[in-house]
């Protein structure tokens, strides 16, 4: 088989997105916040639409900022409902994200007819069009696929965030109050993590869609956790899963002539089920991981 540049670009981009989501997902899972990641990725929708409306384009910085703000608002609402209004965590999440998601859908229907926002694209993404969506500079130079650049930037920021805040993220995930006593800003670390999740969701939504981002946040870490109880191997395995899911997802989609993002998630789901069947019985944690999905 000769080198297929389009296949390479799509797999590279898919891998980068899957790894970014997986790395953040590991810490969301350890904080028992896998569902909050779900909520954020839905709740950013109104932010995307508002940002889009302000910028007049799907590509503006306003879109990312809008989504980031909405992601943080969603986290704050969930937290407030749980702590102050004493609503249970799962109910708080359910209320928050369905409400914000619904607002997003209404906004799309209100505004989308006079702007070029593709609802299908926001929800499901289409990584297959990546090679023809090129980044062209003002002077006309073609730099390559725009979404690949976004994915590289996103991956760099996520990897840097986790590298530089590794000990704070780990400590506050395990024992938040112990961290607070030592003067580690637990709340700030938490908000930073939520912001990274929001940003990653927006950055990835054009490629794999807002809904499928959720699967990449939740499933690879949960699968890896079935195989190892050590943090570093857990992170490495999540990364390898991200790459494997992209490669398999691409070629299976090619084979069955279906959506690449959809196939990536299917592969992730099948890998999880297989792992659960093999390891599930011997592992206590499998129950919690599955309950988080």
């Amino acid at each position, binding site marked *: 088989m000769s080198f297929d540049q389009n296949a390479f670009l799509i797999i590279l981009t898919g891998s980068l997105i899957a790894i970014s989501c997986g790395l953040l997902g590991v810490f969301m899972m*350890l904080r*028992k916040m896998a569902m909050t990641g779900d909520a954020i990725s839905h709740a950013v929708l109104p932010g995307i639409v508002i940002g889009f409306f302000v910028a007049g384009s799907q590509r503006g910085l306003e879109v990312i900022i809008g989504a980031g703000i909405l992601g943080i608002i969603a986290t704050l609402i969930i937290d407030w409902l749980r702590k102050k209004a*004493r609503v249970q965590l799962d109910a708080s999440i359910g209320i928050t994200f369905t409400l914000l998601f619904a607002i997003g859908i209404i906004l799309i229907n209100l505004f989308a007819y006079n702007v070029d926002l593709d609802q299908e694209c926001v929800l499901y993404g289409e990584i297959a069009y990546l090679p023809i969506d090129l980044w062209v500079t003002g002077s006309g130079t073609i730099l390559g696929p725009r979404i690949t650049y976004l994915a590289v930037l996103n991956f760099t920021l996520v990897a840097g965030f986790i590298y*530089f805040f*590794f*000990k*704070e993220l*780990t*400590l506050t*995930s*395990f*024992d938040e*109050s*112990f*961290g*607070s*006593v*030592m*003067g*580690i800003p637990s709340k700030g670390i938490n908000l930073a993590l939520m912001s990274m999740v929001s940003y990653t969701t927006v950055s990835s939504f054009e490629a794999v869609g807002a809904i499928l981002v959720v699967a990449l946040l939740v499933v690879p870490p949960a699968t890896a*956790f079935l195989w*190892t*109880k*050590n*943090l570093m191997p*857990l992170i490495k395995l999540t990364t390898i899963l991200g790459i494997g899911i992209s490669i398999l997802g691409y070629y299976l989609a090619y084979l069955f002539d279906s959506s690449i993002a959809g196939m990536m998630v299917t592969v992730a789901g099948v890998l999880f089920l297989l792992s659960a069947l093999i390891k599930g019985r011997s592992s*206590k*944690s499998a129950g*919690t991981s599955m309950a988080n999905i």
Partner: protein
Amino acid sequence: MIIQAESPVLEIHDMTVSYDQSPVLWNIDFTLPSGQLIGILGPNGAGKSTLIKAIMGLVNPTGGYVKVFDKPLEEVRSRISYVPQRESVDWNFPASVLDVVMMGTYGKLGLFKRPGKREKEVALASLDQVGMSAFINRQISELSGGQQQRVFIARALAQDADLYLMDEPFAGVDIATEAAIFELLKKMALEGKTVVVVHHDIYSAMTYFDWMIMLNLHLVASGPKNQVVTEELLRKTYGGKLNLLSKVSELVRKQDFNPLEH
């Protein structure tokens, strides 16, 4: 009976703590001396954990204030160490014994710095002190309750603080280990550290502590053990639990004739 300490390490002034508007600690007002092993006694739900959390700023008092080393809390955080109740974390977390104990060094390390050789040595020494050297690489999910408790104590030791606050560190720990750890705490107190321990067993409390705080939503007593542990004050702390109280009177009587402390 509240006996004040001279040049106290900890000063709590007229503090009230509430959850959802309903106070669980009322007008707590006491001072603690340095270099002593201090016990907090009280029945379940007396507010012992809440008191410790309020000292460390994990819950905010609705009234009054706390001063540690004669300063506001924020200025002396690095000198305070905490052993939370074991159930407060999920032990399925992917970490080894060494990983968890190393966390004790993170506070002094500061942002962006990674734990290195020095931090590892501190952690290993702390594990040695609680007799857990053989378990360094063990997954924390594979430890017994008593071993988990010792890991938490080692993590606090790795912090190298001056004031230690421990919430039921002996829950689920066997008697031999309890005695060994109490010896360790005693040694720390002799070195000038102040160790405050929430404890559930009045018998061993009488043996080990120098100073006692008795609590039941209100502060019942605070002072040197010999002065504040009386039948009357124990009755006030624990209410009318007869079975317990008959044992307690026996204990107090024994103490009169044949003091338990060595």
